[in-house]
């Protein structure tokens, strides 16, 4: 199966697909997998640490997920949206204090040593819990991992921990690294962080800084038929325009993570031999969010926040900034999430008159020059779209008499200004939804987070009821009760607007026709590519 070629006519279909339930199988002409070949892929950055057990981020996974495997991977049609990898099954106890993993037999590390439950215990306790960016939160109550035999690992939690959360965390947070490689010396300084050793279908072969990474086929992979490819080469192409040119010149065969800018997709979709694929990122949804500094007296007023929400034309943003490759948002959980999303929340249709009315009611009348008050607006520089939305927001606010001054910073400076110094009134941010609100979403609105923590509530927002709801959900074990609480959470956030969710988007892949089995799971770009092949 191959992906879905997109034309201009197909734009709407494309965005609908992005939203459609995750169970849609890929459409396209069938190809029979073929062995061999080198797949050359564009890479736009070079992560400084390639250990996915320490740095659970898409930039690292893009390369390392082919080398280091997780306990389970996301799936379009598997139970609970998962398919087995290193673990064959997972079972949570009723009291929420333990989770039992049955592990795959006959798996070997790339250096030939056998993979056992000791590796899982080591990874969980020594790496995920103390060192991993996301694991430090999700596994904070992990107390011990019992290993009754070589193929069983039992996670023991000090406090009841929802099994649903652990399950949802498996695809991104459970990369297993070899104990025998990491047990000597400091884990952070281990050379394997830059040349990872795993159990995956590909071995880490070579890295030339500024040029390329090369992964080579693991002949001893546990799935005897896979991988199909002999090699994967990531060619470092730092310039945003070069990925498209390299695809056209047939120097590379795949550009993932929207390495080809949205504005080029229409043209490139017409190039013979290339296909544009919008699937395969359903599990990696980014959210376009207006972050609000509630320390500003005007913004502490709910009416003002509602007015801002009404002033934003979300459809326009999706059509003009994202060229249709996105969806409008209603709240803090994206529409394409199969477990938690609810549409039953207060909504803020685009309505300038209403916005003006609300501002008048709040007591911020227009001065003689037509302006009510001025704000400092900091768009995050990480994506073209966040910057463009900043420009749009400035114009939208001008219409309702709010004079927003844009402050442009580079990544590090933006980080410091917004999340440490709080030197902003409004900011545009792209938080990521990671399959469960407790992983990285509730933190966006929860109070009591220390200064300097990125992608968290640094706007000084405090709502005791919302805090209580988040706390309750974090210890609710029953899956449906927990899901219900997060639906309630979405309602409260949409009602009180600690931040404004504008749109949800994900990435686009462009590949040559010859690349097969693309986008066959919701985290395809960061999955192991064992079944990816090159035809003809």
């Amino acid at each position, binding site marked *: 199966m191959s992906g879905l070629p997109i034309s201009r006519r197909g734009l709407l279909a494309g965005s609908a697909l992005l939203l459609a339930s995750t169970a849609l199988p890929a459409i396209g002409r069938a190809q029979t997998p073929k062995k061999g070949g*080198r797949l*050359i892929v564009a890479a736009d*950055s070079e*992560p*400084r*640490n390639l250990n996915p057990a320490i*740095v*659970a*981020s898409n*930039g690292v996974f893009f390369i390392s997920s082919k080398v280091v495997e997780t306990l389970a991977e996301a799936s379009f049609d598997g139970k609970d949206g998962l398919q087995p990898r290193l673990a064959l099954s997972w079972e949570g106890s009723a009291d929420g204090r333990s989770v039992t993993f049955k592990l795959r037999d006959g798996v070997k590390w790339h250096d030939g040593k056998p993979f056992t439950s000791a590796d899982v215990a080591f990874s969980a306790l020594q790496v995920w819990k103390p*060192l991993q*960016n*996301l694991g*430090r*939160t999700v596994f904070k109550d992990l107390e011990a991992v019992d290993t009754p035999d070589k193929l069983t690992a039992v996670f023991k939690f000090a406090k009841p921990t929802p099994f649903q959360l652990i399950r949802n965390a498996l695809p991104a947070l459970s990369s297993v690294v070899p104990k025998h490689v990491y047990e000597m010396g400091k884990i*952070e*300084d281990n050379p394997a*962080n*830059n040349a990872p050793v795993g159990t995956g279908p590909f071995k880490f072969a*070579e890295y*030339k*800084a*500024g*040029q*390329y990474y*090369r992964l080579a086929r693991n002949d001893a992979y546990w799935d005897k038929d896979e991988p199909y490819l002999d*090699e994967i*080469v990531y*060619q*470092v*192409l*730092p*310039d945003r*325009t*070069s990925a498209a*040119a*390299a695809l*056209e*010149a047939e*120097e590379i065969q795949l550009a993932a993570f929207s390495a080809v800018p949205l504005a080029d997709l229409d043209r490139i979709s017409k190039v013979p031999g290339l296909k544009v694929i919008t699937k395969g990122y359903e599990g990696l949804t980014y959210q376009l969010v207006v972050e609000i500094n509630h320390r500003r007296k005007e913004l502490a007023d709910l009416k003002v926040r509602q007015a801002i929400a009404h002033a934003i034309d979300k459809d326009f943003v999706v059509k003009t900034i994202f060229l249709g490759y996105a969806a409008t948002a209603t709240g803090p959980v994206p529409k394409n999430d199969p477990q938690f999303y609810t549409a039953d929340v207060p909504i803020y249709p685009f309505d300038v008159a209403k916005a003006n009315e609300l501002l008048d009611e709040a007591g911020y009348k227009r001065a003689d020059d037509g302006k009510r008050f001025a704000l400092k607006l900091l768009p995050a520089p*990480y994506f073209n779209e966040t910057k463009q939305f900043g420009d749009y927001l400035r114009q939208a606010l001008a219409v309702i008499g709010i004079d927003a001054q844009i402050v442009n*910073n*580079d*990544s*590090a*400076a*933006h*980080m*410091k*200004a917004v999340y*440490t*110094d709080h030197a902003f009134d409004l900011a545009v941010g792209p938080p990521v939804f990671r399959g469960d609100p407790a992983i*990285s979403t509730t933190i966006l609105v929860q109070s009591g*987070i*220390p*200064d*300097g*923590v*990125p*992608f968290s509530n640094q706007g000084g927002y405090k709502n005791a009821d919302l805090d209580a709801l988040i706390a309750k959900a974090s210890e609710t074990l029953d899956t449906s009760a927990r899901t219900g609480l997060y639906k309630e959470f979405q309602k409260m956030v949409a009602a009180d607007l600690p931040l404004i969710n504008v749109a949800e988007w994900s990435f686009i892949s462009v590949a040559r026709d010859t690349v097969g089995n693309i986008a066959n799971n919701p985290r395809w770009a960061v999955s192991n590519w064992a079944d990816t092949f090159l035809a003809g």
Partner: protein
Amino acid sequence: MTRALTLLRRRLVGSVFVLLIVVIGSFLLLEAAPGDAVDAYIVSTGGDAGMIELLRHRWGLDQSELTRLANYLWALLHLDLGQSVTFSRPIRDVILERLPSTLILMGSATALSFGLGSALGIYAGARPGSFRDRFLSIGSLALYAVPGFWLGLVLIVVFAVDLRWLPIGGIETVASAKTGVARARDIAAHLVLPVSALGFIYLALYLRMMRAGMAEAWRQDFVLAARARGLPRRRIVLAHVARNALLPLVTMLGLQSAQMLGGSVVIESVFAVPGLGRLAQEAVAGRDTPLLLGIILVSAVLVIVINLLVDLAYAFLDPRVGAGEAVA
């Protein structure tokens, strides 16, 4: 020979001070930029407060600016450039790995712009005011006005994407395992486009300078004398007019080397050349102060060495220069 040695000695003493000022100045400037290496890193990963504190401590960013500057200078005294936080490797290794690409790119581009620029300048300046003079002057100015990245992109679209004569980027074919002559040819093919993009832009400078110098020289008495002696025009152009116009170009060459380093940042990004310019950009984005200082130091040394060579060449071309120093 003594003249050269005296020059060398004086330059070295001066250079140490220049380098010291460059290092301290750059350090303070980079410190003044908002955000540090941990801020830059955490953008791509996220993380909680404890992790951020841990990283600041591990990367030594919890020390005061003064302590870090003192530590850096002390290490520098022992010829140790320190450890890069973005690469978790010794800075010396990181820079040495990138230096050849930049040197070969800069060297070829300088040779192209200087060689072709002065040759065309002689051609234009041989008959100032003629059609070919005007055509070349305007043409080269147009090239000079073109932004480097744009010229690079146009070259890519035409020669790499449409015609497919040349590779679109990189310094060599990735993971090709080529060696010897095959590898050299591969690298040469990869260099054609970036060298052209970088070289053509600066070509105008040399062309205009050569042409202006020659137009000036034509009016000098010695040219009149040469003509009166009945020398062939060709000889007058090359040996008398052009030679006299050449000196300022050599000065320009020295000045240009520094600019070329700056221009290569853009060209290296567009053509994905793993060089120092791109490394510098990454160092700034990642707030990797020691790495950036290392790059600046190496670049400064490079510029100083080139200018020293230029001075020596100058002394060679014009015996009047440095005559005083030789006596002293």
